[in-house]
Each structure stands twice: as C-alpha cells, then as structure tokens.
C-alpha cells in the first residue's frame, strides 16, 4: 500500500477578485521511502499542494474536492485535533521561507524541544538529548542549540529546521524549495545533506523546486505542475531522457542540466496563466510553440505514454519533432512574438 495517495485534489483560494483555482485534479501516489519531485515555475500551485498535505492552507484556501489518503486514512475528513496530532509526528515540513520560520524570541534548541514534547512523553532532558543528536546529524555544533535565530546564518537556520523536521522521524517530509533562500554554495551543501539524511532515515519525501537540476539527484518520480495541474508525470529517468510535454521541454531548456553543459539557456516566454478565470483548453496554450486550435478548445487529459509515464498533451505522437524544435531558439522566439502580437 502506498504511504500517500492523492486523488482528484482541487484547491481554491477565495480572493477579493474571485475564486482562484490553485490546484486542479491532481492525482499521485507516494510509496514508503520514495521521493517525489514537484517542479514548475513560481505560481503553479506547488506550495499550495504541499501545504494541503498537512492541512496547513491559509484561511482563504480550501480543499474543495478530492482525497488525501495518508496511511490509509483520508486527511481531508479529519478534525483539527486529529490533524494536529499528525502534524510533525507523521508529516513534517521544511518550508519555502524558512529564513523566518524560527520564532525570533526563543532559542533554537527550545523550539526543537517544543516540537518533540508536543507529540511525545519525552522529558525535557530527553528532548534536549535528542536535539543534540539531531544537530550532530546535520553538522551543527551542539552549543548552537543555545543560539537565538538572529545569531545564526541562513545556512545554519536551514540546517536547524532540517534537524527539527527529522526530530520525530516522520514517515513523510515535505521540502518546499528548501534551498532557494541560500547562496549557491550553501544550496549545494544543504541539498547534499538532505539527500544524505534521506538515505539514512529512509523517509518518504515530497521535494518541491523550480530548479529541475535539483530533482535529478533527489527524486524517484517527478511531477511537472503548470497552472495548478499536472502536465507530466514520469520517473526521473524518463523525465530527463524521454520528456514529452512542451512545458517540460521548455523547462529543461531554462536550466543547465548535468548532461548538456555549455548549452544556451532559453527561458519560456510569458508567465503562468491567471488561475482566477482559467481559459478553456490546455493551460499551457499561450506559451506553447506547438499549440493548435484543438489546444484552445479541449483540455488534454493525462494519458500514459509508457508505463508510469503520464503526459497531458494532445500531440504526444509528435514528441520527436517537438524535442528537436524545442532546442532551437527560434521556436521560443516565435512564442515571444505571438505573445507580443496578442498584446501581452
């Protein structure tokens, strides 16, 4: 049985301008010890999806439809108190903006102890010992437990939070862009550490990033999200070796991959769609170099192109042609011109 099964998940935000469909019809499964990567540009609903797994959506956000089955139980139906008991003990999180995730008025050690004591019968002494052990695991000096957050660098804070996330050995850890706030060298170190620790602890993981070079090393499966939908789901191997969706192809151009060092970086012109009032058809149509009239009318469903490899595109049969064209600058220039003509 899978540790986590997300079925038909739909999440909406109520805003002043109307209802925003942040996540639409998401399905995926996560096995024990498996790591799944969520990639996509900013604003594609990754954080929303991640938070919903802990029922941590802001007040104006709501799961309007779907199920989140964790260890056989639907989290959507659980009461606040049931969810509270499950948080951190079973699912913990390294949040996107973890620079401010520590309370400035308490010592870092006390904040870890607090998390431990909220869910176990551990004495203060035992909780402190556990914190010391966790700090050793993430390579922080023990005396740092006595520090206040403002006395630590960004990298240290991030490690402290990773240590905290591991405190209760949760079955699932969600890492939402855990390194974006750090400088490049630190990003690398923290990332390696996360991979290392994940191997030691062997917990499952949802790893979110907008930088696809990161997921190649960390994840087994990759979900490409665009405009609140999954456009492509593939094993990491297929994702890099056999990508199908034009958005995936565009993303791969935009980031230096390990295999194609020296290639020119081309970013996808335009911005993710407005989710307040999504247009019919494929969410990617405006920015897709290969879009046709069909794409404007009919929303493509996810369909299997090979075992475990799902793509939401009407033209999966033309993938060979797409791949060649996607490498060319002119293909994307065409999108740029088209967007300009349409007045974007």
């Amino acid at each position, binding site marked *: 049985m899978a540790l986590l099964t997300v079925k038909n998940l739909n999440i909406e935000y109520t805003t002043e301008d109307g209802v925003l469909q942040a996540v639409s019809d998401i399905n995926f499964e996560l096995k024990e010890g498996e790591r799944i990567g969520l990639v996509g540009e900013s604003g594609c609903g990754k954080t929303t999806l991640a938070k919903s797994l802990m029922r941590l959506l802001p007040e104006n956000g709501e799961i309007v439809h779907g199920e989140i089955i964790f260890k056989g139980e639907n989290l959507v139906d659980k009461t606040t108190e049931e969810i509270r008991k499950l948080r951190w003990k079973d699912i913990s999180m390294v949040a996107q903006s973890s620079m*401010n995730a520590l309370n400035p008025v308490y010592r870092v050690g006390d904040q870890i102890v607090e998390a431990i004591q909220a869910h176990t019968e551990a004495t203060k002494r035992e909780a402190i010992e556990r914190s010391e052990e966790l700090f050793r695991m993430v390579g922080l000096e023990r005396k740092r437990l006595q520090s*206040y957050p403002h006395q630590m660098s960004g990298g240290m804070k991030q490690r402290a939070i990773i240590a905290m996330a591991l405190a209760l050995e949760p079955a699932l850890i969600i890492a939402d862009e855990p390194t974006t706030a750090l400088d490049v060298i630190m990003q690398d170190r923290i990332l390696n550490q996360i991979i290392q620790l994940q191997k030691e602890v062997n917990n499952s993981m949802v790893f979110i990033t907008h930088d696809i070079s990161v997921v190649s090393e960390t994840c087994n499966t990759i979900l490409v999200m665009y405009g609140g939908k999954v456009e492509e789901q593939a094993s990491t191997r297929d994702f890099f070796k056999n990508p199908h969706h034009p958005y995936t192809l565009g993303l791969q151009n935009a980031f230096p991959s390990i295999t194609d060092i020296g290639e020119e970086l081309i970013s996808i012109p335009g911005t993710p769609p407005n989710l307040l009032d999504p247009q019919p058809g494929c969410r990617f149509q405006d920015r897709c170099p290969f879009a046709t009239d069909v794409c404007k009318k009919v929303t493509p469903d996810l369909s299997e192109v090979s075992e475990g490899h799902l793509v939401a595109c009407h033209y999966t049969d033309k993938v060979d042609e797409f791949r060649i064209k996607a490498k060319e600058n002119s293909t994307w220039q065409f999108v740029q011109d088209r967007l300009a003509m349409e007045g974007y």
Partner: protein
Amino acid sequence: MSMYVIRRIFSMLITLFIISTIIFLMFRLMPGDPTASMVDPSIPPEAREQIIERLGLNDSYFVQYTKFMQNLVQFDFGDSFYYKTSALSVLRDKLGATVILMIAAMVLAYGIGVFGGAWMAWRRGSVGESIAITIALIFRSAPTFWVGIMAIYIFSVLLGWLPHSGMRSSGYEAENLFQTFFSLDFLKHLILPTVVAAIYFLATPLLMMRNTMLEVLGEDFIEMARAKGLTERRVLFNHAARNALLPVVTAGALFIGSAIGGQVLIEYVFSWPGLGREMVLAAQRHDYPLAQASFIIMAALIMIMNLVADLLYAYLDPRISYK
C-alpha cells in the same frame, strides 16, 4: 547591560539638569513680580523684604541659579509656602500615592489590553470583536473627567459601594507603612480611580496588540508553529502574542509620558493625594517651591519608568542587546 543602564542614568541626569534650568527660568522670567513666585505675597511687606533678602532674590540671576542648582543636588527644593515644611517631605508621600495608582492602572489596562487584543485578533471579523473595538474607541474618546464623575456618581452616590474620594477614610490611621498601602480601606479607595485611569489607558495597548497580533499571525514562524502540531492556544499565546507584545511594550514606554496628563486629571477628580493633584493645587495656591519640586520629580518619574520599559523590552526581545 549595566553599562547601558549607567549611560542611561547619566543622560537622565543631564535631561533633569536641563529641565530644572528651564523651570528655574520659567518661574523667574514670567511676567509680573518675580519675587511673588518665591515669597508668599500675602505676608506683611517688612517681613517680605526680609525673606527676599534672606532668599537672595535681590542677587543677580546667575548667583541665584548657582544657588538653586546647589540646593537641587542636595535634594533641597525649598519650603512649601502652604505647608511650611520642606517641599520634598510634602511630596514624598504624594509620590508613593501617584506611583501606586499609576502602576495599578497600567497593570490593569495592559493586562486587559494585551489579552483582549490577542483575543480580538484571534476572533477577527466576529461580532464580539466589533463590539470590543467600539467600546475601546468610546473609552478612548470619552473625557476622563466625565468618566470619573460618572463613576463616582454611580458607584459612590447611587450604589454607595465605593468611597468617592481620597486615599483613606477620615479618622483612619494606619499603624505602619504597610497598612497605609495594603489595608482593605486603601484598596477600596484605589478601585474607582484605578478603573477610570485604566479605561483612559486601555485603548492604546488593546488596539495596538490587536493590530500587531494580526501582523504576527501572518508570519512564517506562526505557520511553522502550526506545522509542528502545537495546540492553537500555544500558537496563539506562546508564539504570536509573545511577539506581538514587543511593539506594545515600546509604545507603552512612549505612552507613559503622555499618560501623566490623564493621571493629573484623575487624581484631581478623585481627590487622590498624589503628585499630580498636588501639582495643580500648588499652582493654584501660588506655592511655587512646591510646584517646581513636583515638576522636577514628575519628570524624573517619567524618565525612570521609561528606562524600566526599555529594560523590559530588552528582556523580552533577544535581538535587542543594550551595550
């Protein structure tokens, strides 16, 4: 930290020195007979001349100023015309009465303000919150004088529950200092002025706490606290309110100075034998040495309370380190 306190005390002394100088000049450069401010005008002219001579009021301002300052550093504020004893001994008891009333009112106002404000932020948008805001705003805009008189009218005159003025019943003699301030009789007298003063103080911490609390509730560490599976109560009080408290304390420090105005009014309305009331009475009685002394002591009191608030702030916020 101790270096900081020493520096602050030093700068307080300088400020007090400047304030004293201004007060010295104020009382002498006022239009009219300057000696009237120093010597009781109601006594016979010959005696008056004698006293003027004795007090050195015919000397140059410079000589007078030096003498004034010399006396001041020895805590000699001169003798009160009205009480015929040293101004300092008159004010010593009054200072205690003022400090007790002020602290009682502040504790009440900040206690209700901080918890009430946190509650309002938590229940934002509810009917209860709207009612609380309305009440707070009414309290803030209601004239203290009027509230005081209404309170006296209702609770003393109509209901007869509480005494309407003073600090103790007439005829009551305390056996010792402890009894002066902690007897039931005293506490009964304390209730009305404390509540009225607290009403006057309340709006600031209440509304401020509510607003900063709303801000803090949007912070990342609050989401983290929730993610950690802490109870909502713990998130609210240990994490959100604890941080929202910081600006409220800062505001409190600044507020103390402006609170004195209200304090004077309340002491006056309730005939509370405090510094504020004595200040008004001394001015009315043309008892200038006493008025001068109460000005200076009041200024010192405000500065000390400010310092205490600053130190409290440093204690509450580890990011602040005073050096």
